[in-house]
Structure formats: structure tokens, C-alpha cells
């Protein structure tokens, strides 16, 4: 008979999935976007990504030391935050600003709340919001991908050319169309292909739609994310943009333009689906995703900023606990009335 028996509570078997594996899946899902970033922005891509990861992980180590808690960097969540932050930054952002942003995103976005699982706001978006508020000019100076021999978008609105290398992104151009009440109808097939393959100016990782979709589909297939939040974000943004475009197609660009430009897809698949800051229930996820899509479009069309994903995500993060309360599931036997 065996001598040492373990006594612990049921269940005695586990499925073997771990937080680290979920985070590793997200990292793998981001690899196509990182590869596309390297292709279009050359050396700036690894500089930003590696700096972000290193700064995030170092900050988390340091904060764990301060809190006298065991080192939590091995759950890879700091790596994911670093990559997402890097992919949402302008490619030419100076390295010192990148470091500051990463440290802020981990320290104030996550560790101050109590570490993984306790934060209210998406840490990468917190870092980016801090950078936007503090270094506004640096954060709105865009770079054209090095593969463009001549500037495609500027063919539509020549007055946009500031310089051969730094020029407006598609979203800045659409914001101009809204303001001028003219110019939106020119968006056509060539521009759509450019947006989908990534030959447009923008943040590091959000330009190539195909890469993001490949990563997103990988996550869906692996079961790391459920389809509800991405579907809700994309559908609500599409509907909002379609309503605007139908009302005035000279002023508002087609919905497909909005879907393929800016950080909407990156946000739908990788940023909004962050489990810590999104609701628990399926109905909650639909409402959350719809809120992000609608707010993004509201800011893009009627707000002052050309891009709205970051603020939309942060705003909906703040409402997530309320959404969870609203959609508290009713137990299968109904509310208990019998004792």
C-alpha cells in the first residue's frame, strides 16, 4: 500500500490550459502584424517592439520587488502589453518616449492596481494615452512605409503633402474630408487595396489588415478569444459608418474604409479582447464591443481626433464592471425564492 497519499479538494484533474498559454497564443497571433510592421517600417519595428517589451518586463520586475511579491513576469502579460503598445505607436517615436510610455503602462496601468487581473484599464492603452497627452506632436507625426515610391494618399488631396516622408495618414485625410464636407467620395479600389496590404501611413502594427486578420483568426480557432467582441466592434463600426456615408457620401467615407484604417481591427481582435478589462458574460461582451465600435466612430467622425480606438477602449473599460452587474446571469433554477 502506498505510504504518502495526497489529500486535496476536488476536482483532481485539470485541463492543463494556463494563463501563460493564453498570453503565448496572443503573442503568436501578433506575429503576422509584427512581421508586416518590419516589412513596411524596416528597422523602426524591432527597435520599438524590443524596447517596449524590455521596458515593460523590467518595470514589472521592479514593481514586484517593491511590492515584495513573487516575480510575475513569467505569465507573459507584460510581453503582450509591450507588443500591443509598440504596435500602436507611430514608427518614428523616439526611443526615450517609448521607454517612458512602456514604464507608465505597466506601473500605472497595471501594477498600481494590484497586478494582473486587478487593473481596470487596458495597460497598453493607458500608456498610449499618457504619451498622447504628454508628447502630442511626436505622437501625431506619421511616417509613410518605406515601400511606397511615391505617396499614394496624397494623390487624392495634394495639399496634404508636408514632406516627402512624413505625411498624413488615411484617417487624417478622412477627417479633412469631414471638415471640408468634400473629398470622401474619391475613396476607391486602389486606396482600399493599399489599406488592406498596409502601404499606408499609420501606427506601427495597424496598417496591414491581412496580417491582423490572420492573427485574429488564429486566436479564434485556438479558442483564446471568443468571436463576440471582435464581431460587435466591427459590426457596430460598420453600421455607424454606413449610416453616415448613406446620409452624405461626399462628407463621410465608405464603411469599408473605416474598417480597414486605423487601429480598429487591431483593437477589435487584440486590444478589446483583453480578458481582464472586458466583461465576463456573452451579452456583456456584445454590449462592450458595440460600445467600442460606436465610440470609435463617434470620435473619428464628430470628434477632434482622427483616431478613436484608444479612447473608446478606455471609456468602455471604465464601464465594464457596470456591464457585468447589468448582465449578472440568472441561475438555472431562477432566482432563489425557496429556502
Amino acid at each position, binding site marked *: *500500500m502506498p505510504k504518502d497519499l495526497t489529500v486535496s479538494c476536488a476536482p483532481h484533474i485539470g485541463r492543463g*490550459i*494556463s494563463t501563460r498559454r493564453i498570453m503565448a497564443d496572443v503573442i503568436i497571433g501578433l506575429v503576422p502584424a509584427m512581421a508586416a510592421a518590419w516589412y513596411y517600417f524596416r528597422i523602426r519595428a524591432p527597435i520599438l517592439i524590443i524596447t517596449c517589451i524590455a521596458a515593460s518586463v523590467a518595470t514589472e520586475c521592479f514593481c514586484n520587488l517593491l511590492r515584495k511579491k513573487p516575480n510575475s513576469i513569467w505569465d507573459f502579460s507584460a510581453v503582450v502589453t509591450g507588443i500591443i503598445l509598440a504596435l500602436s505607436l507611430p514608427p518614428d517615436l523616439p526611443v526615450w518616449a517609448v521607454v517612458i510610455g512602456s514604464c507608465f503602462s505597466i506601473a500605472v496601468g497595471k501594477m498600481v492596481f494590484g497586478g494582473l487581473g486587478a487593473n481596470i484599464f487596458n495597460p497598453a492603452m493607458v500608456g498610449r494615452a499618457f504619451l498622447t497627452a504628454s508628447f502630442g506632436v511626436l505622437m501625431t507625426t506619421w511616417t509613410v512605409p518605406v515601400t511606397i515610391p511615391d505617396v499614394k494618399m496624397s494623390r487624392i488631396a495634394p495639399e496634404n503633402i508636408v514632406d516627402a516622408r512624413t505625411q498624413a495618414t488615411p484617417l487624417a485625410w478622412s477627417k479633412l474630408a469631414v471638415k471640408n464636407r468634400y473629398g470622401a467620395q474619391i475613396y476607391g479600389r486602389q486606396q482600399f487595396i493599399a489599406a488592406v496590404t498596409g502601404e499606408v501611413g499609420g501606427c506601427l502594427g495597424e496598417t496591414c489588415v491581412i496580417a491582423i486578420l490572420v492573427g485574429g483568426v488564429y486566436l479564434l480557432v485556438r479558442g483564446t478569444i471568443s468571436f463576440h467582441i471582435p464581431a460587435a466592434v466591427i459590426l457596430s463600426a460598420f453600421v455607424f459608418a454606413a449610416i453616415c456615408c448613406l446620409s452624405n457620401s461626399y462628407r463621410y467615407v465608405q464603411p469599408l474604409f473605416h474598417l480597414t484604417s486605423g487601429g480598429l481591427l487591431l483593437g477589435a481582435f487584440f486590444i478589446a479582447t483583453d480578458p481582464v478589462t472586458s466583461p465576463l458574460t456573452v451579452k456583456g461582451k456584445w454590449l462592450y464591443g458595440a460600445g467600442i465600435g460606436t465610440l470609435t466612430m463617434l470620435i473619428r467622425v464628430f470628434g477632434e481626433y482622427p483616431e478613436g480606438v484608444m479612447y473608446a477602449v478606455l471609456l468602455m473599460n471604465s464601464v465594464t464592471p457596470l456591464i457585468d452587474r447589468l448582465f449578472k446571469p440568472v*441561475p*438555472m433554477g431562477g432566482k432563489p425564492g*425557496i429556502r
Partner: protein
Amino acid sequence: MRVDTKARLTFPGGTHPPESKDLTRNREIQVGPAVKEVAIMLSQHTGAACSPLVGQGDAVKAGQKIGDSDAHISAPVHSPVDGKVKEIGLRPHAILGRSPAIVIEASDPNSVRHPSFELRADFNEGSYSPESALWRVRDAGIVGMGGGGFPTSVKLRADSKTPREVLIVNGCECEPYITCDYRIMLEWASRITVGIALARRVSGCSRVFLGIEDNKPEAINAMNAAVKATAGAEGIEVAPVRTKYPQGGERQLIKAILNKKVPSGGIPPMIGVVVLNVATVAAIAEAVVCGRPLTHRVVTVTGEAVAKPGNYYVPIGTSIEDLIGFCGGAAENTAKIIVGGPMMGIAIADLKTPITKTTGAITVLTEEQVVRKLERQQTPCIHCGRCLEVCPEQLVPTKIAHAVKNNLFDVAERYHIRACMECGCCSYVCPANIELAGYIKTGKIFLARQEKRMPA
């Protein structure tokens, strides 16, 4: 209540642990160990514990009633062997710690009893009046053998306040490793159909379903054949249900077959349903037709660490040590010996724990099977929502568990901690390795102690 018995019936939530039934599914029921000593617990059922009817030194015969209670919700206990009462003392119990038991020393340590059932060709369940059949069920000490241990005579008794319309017989056996119910459906099919016919007569139910998970096609065929072959078993509908854990929970089975929900905090008779396990039903047949009390049951001894896994017909009161010894002993690298299955079973340390009427399986697991869950750290909850997806009672396990962890019992009540059936699905799927089911169980015990429903 229109039900499509050919459809893939199921319930919301649930998960799919690996079945691991191949170790014992093809092992026929064998006679268990010849025991020198049995320890019959006085409380093997929900309800009032029995008081002993015999004293130390008394001689007892096999089948003799040795403990009974006057309480309404109770069931007597019987001796499985001829022998002498050695003592009335405490024996280990998986949940209660230590509990009084009547220990009987067998006069013939080599005798075993073989399962048998004699049915006359002119069997007619109408020849038994409901009252006399109910009396026999009570007198035989039959309780819910699927694990619940509720006295069956109380469950079957027709009650004008909660009239019973549907009888569901539970042959699902959703837990991994366990095959005892599967084997008795294959080998004792006629006993089961006779028992169902008797239960139907006693309870007055008009419709009868036999729920079997669809990973047991042989059992479905065997039961269909037996229903056709047995007189008095007309109208019993064999309902295959989708294989998913915990389909065998009675609330989940009612939802799958009838698409009805048992109210929270309530019991199935409140919606006119009675649920019985197949082993209980077989015991009803033996008690009413052959007059035999519940003294033996089929137990699956399984797990990769046991030398001769199989399904054994053992006397109730056999110590687990004797049973595992009879099966060739447990390997050196055994980490856990579990009363029950790996999802809801209770790991024990004291192998003198006796088999009770509700023990369906002993699962012996090796170190490498449990180390993945044990050695990994508990990391913080990332709100992934997987526990909500799999909860068969549609609760929010992470909120309840964290409320209990932080002593916020009002929050735990607001998230319906009492509705939890402790199935373990939430802990099973949690990526952060949090012992959700463990915290919730602890919370329920605290509440029970606060409300004096459990001794402190």
C-alpha cells in the same frame, strides 16, 4: 411534455474531461473480496442517522436489520454477512471525518455472495400494492445509490401536495473512470426494467424516461431490448443524451430530457419529477420481488495506479484497504485514492474508510496525473469567463470564490452560492489554476456551520 427522444438532448454549460472508461468498461461484474470484517456506518443517507438495534457481542445473520430510526427521512441498515458484532465505534468517513459504525466480524471469512435475481415468468407489477412495495423499499434500506443517499421510500411516496408525473431513471454516469452503472445496465437489464416498473407503480408517474449518455451505445441497446422483453415495462422511453459532464446531475438531466428547470433551492418533486439512479432501481427490484435488503453494491475500482481495475460486487462496509488489496494493490507512485470519480470525488488518507451505500467507485491516481494540477501555482484571475461558460447552474464561479476568499459572504449569497452543485467544472477549466470549486465548497460549509446545519 412533448420530448423528442431521438434528438441530441443536452443542458447549457458543462465540459468534457477525458472519459478514461476503457480501463473498466469491458470488465464484467465480478464478486468482490471475502471480508473478515465489515463496518456498517449508521449514517449512510441524508436524514436522521440510525440507532443501533444490536449490541456488542450479538450474533447477526446476513440480511438482518442492525440499525433503524423512527424519523420520517431515514433508512435502516443491514448486515451483509453472518457474524458477531465486534464493536460499535467510530470509523473514518470521507465527509464527516469520523462517524459511528457497527463493526461486524464475519463468522466465515471466505464466503462471498453472488449477485442473483429470480424473476417469475408471470411477473406483474400490479400484484404489488404501492403501500406494500413502499414498505419493502423502506425496510430494505434503499437510498439513492448514485451518491445523493436520499431515502428512496420517502422520494417515491406519492404526495398530494407535489404530485409526480414523470419518473426519470439516471443511467448517465458522466464522471470519468466510473463504469458501475454501465455494467449493471448491460448485465442486470431485466432487474432494472422490473425496478422501473415497480417505481412507476409506487410513485404514480405516468411517463418514464431512462437517460443514458450517448458514449454508451451498448447500454442503450441493452436497455431498449430489456424494455421490450420485460412484461410490465411498456412505455419506458430510453432517452440518449449528449455526453457531457455533468449530464448525470439530476437538474441537468431534467433540463436535457424535459427542458424544465428545477427551482433554485428546490427539489424535482416540486415540478412533478422523480429521478432515480439505475443502481437504486435495481435494488428496488431485488427488495420488492426477492425480499432482499441492500447489503451489497457494485463498485468500480479503477485508475492507472491499481493493478487489477474492474467492477466488483462488494459487501457494504468493506474497507477500502481490503478492496484495493483484492484488486492487486495500488502502485508505488500512487498520489491519490479517491472515493468517487476524479471530478467530484473526495480524496482520502485513511484506508480503513468503509464502502457505504453511496460509494460507486474508488479511483486511484498516479503522481503524474495529479501533479499538473497540484504543483502549479494559483495565479490571479484574469476574468476570462471560462468558468461562466462551463457552469451547469449558470453561476459566476469566480465572483463567488473570490467573495469567499475575502470573507464577503453577503456578496457570495448575492451571486447565489447556494445554487452551486459542486461539480468542479469551473476549477477544471480555470487557466489560472484557481481552486474555484474548493473555495465555493468552503464557503458553503461556513454558511452551513453559521446556520447550525452542520457541526462546527
